[in-house]
């Protein structure tokens, strides 16, 4: 079955979504990620969606859910590389993803993640 890889970098987990998300893939990712956070006791999760050029409300909600569940498991989440079209779509769908930290690219995302982990 198709899976989105979750890479470990020290105390951080790195998720890069490089294929079109469909519902089952999103649910699998959600399960895998929570399981990995639990196993590695990661402090931060960085989700790179720069290759994602299409979203629907389900994927939008999934992003919010992942962020929420990581926070409960004491891992900060930063979402990086959202494309303009995706941002506009999410806003038009009314999904403003409150509480999700965002950054322009992976480099800045890592910087933000370290700051947040230090402060938490």
């Amino acid at each position, binding site marked *: 079955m198709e899976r989105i890889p979750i890479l470990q970098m020290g105390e951080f987990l790195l998720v890069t979504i490089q294929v079109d998300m469909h519902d089952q893939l999103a649910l699998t990712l959600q399960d895998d990620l929570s399981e990995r956070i639990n196993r590695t006791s990661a402090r931060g999760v960085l989700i790179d969606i720069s290759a994602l050029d299409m979203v629907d409300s389900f994927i939008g909600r999934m992003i919010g859910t992942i962020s929420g569940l990581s926070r409960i498991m004491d891992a900060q989440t930063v979402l990086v590389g959202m494309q303009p079209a995706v941002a*506009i779509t*999410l806003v038009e769908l009314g999904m403003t*993803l409150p509480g999700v930290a965002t*950054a322009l690219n992976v480099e800045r995302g890592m910087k933000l993640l370290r700051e947040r982990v230090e402060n938490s």
Partner: protein
Amino acid sequence: MATLHATTVQALQSNKLSLLTTWIESLEASGATRNVKEADLKQQANDFLNTLIAALEQGGSQNVNHENWAETRVLLEKLSHSRALVGQDSQQTASFIFALKGPLFALLQREYAEQPAQLAEQLWEISELLDALGMHTIRTFQKSRELVIKRQQEELLELSTPVVKLWDGVLALPMIGTLDSQRTQVVMESLLQRIVDTGAEIAIIDITGVPTVDTLVAQHLLKTVTAIRLMGADCIISGVRPQIAQTIVHLGLDLQGVVTKANLADALALSLKRLGVTVTKAV
């Protein structure tokens, strides 16, 4: 439905030159040739007569939608398009065809001087034909004009929303004029694209040039701010004039933690501070 006689078509063919001269004379007299070069006009008139006669010689249908008339139609479409571009109005464009009626009727009158019944029939036919061609010209003229207007509207939209770079990592968007959904869309797209291209961390939206802020405008602004935040950049709204601040408060609008500044200079100062840049006066 009666058709044009072969004699009529022949008369057209043999009197083409004199027809052309009188036609152009009447065109010039009516003032329909303004902004059109004389050589161009002659060429167009000549081409039109040629295709008209060619189509008539193929005989059969008087219906201008028939394929025999394809060449004539294309010619007229080109003509009305070029007229629309030089700014002629629909009347001037239509007169190009209708001015041909005078010389043509005179010609037919000479040709059928002895046969009044035939004359009336042929006149009616040719009149119908020219009317149909004239209508076609006007239709395409209108289409061309609509295209011009649409293009100008789009250009205006693009022009009125420039994204400027204020500092390394700071973009500014001075908004001028009323904000509607369509403009917000264009603004949002161009700003977000520039954020991706330049990797800017801070975007300043200056609303000094926005005359009024109502609930709808505020909603559009919030959408833009949210989209910018989702992309991972920060947004500052500057240029909030006292009246606008009052309106926003009176309307009970909640700007949901959006950073607002009175003017662009304050917004720039804040961005520099966030970037960790200090500006000092050289002594």
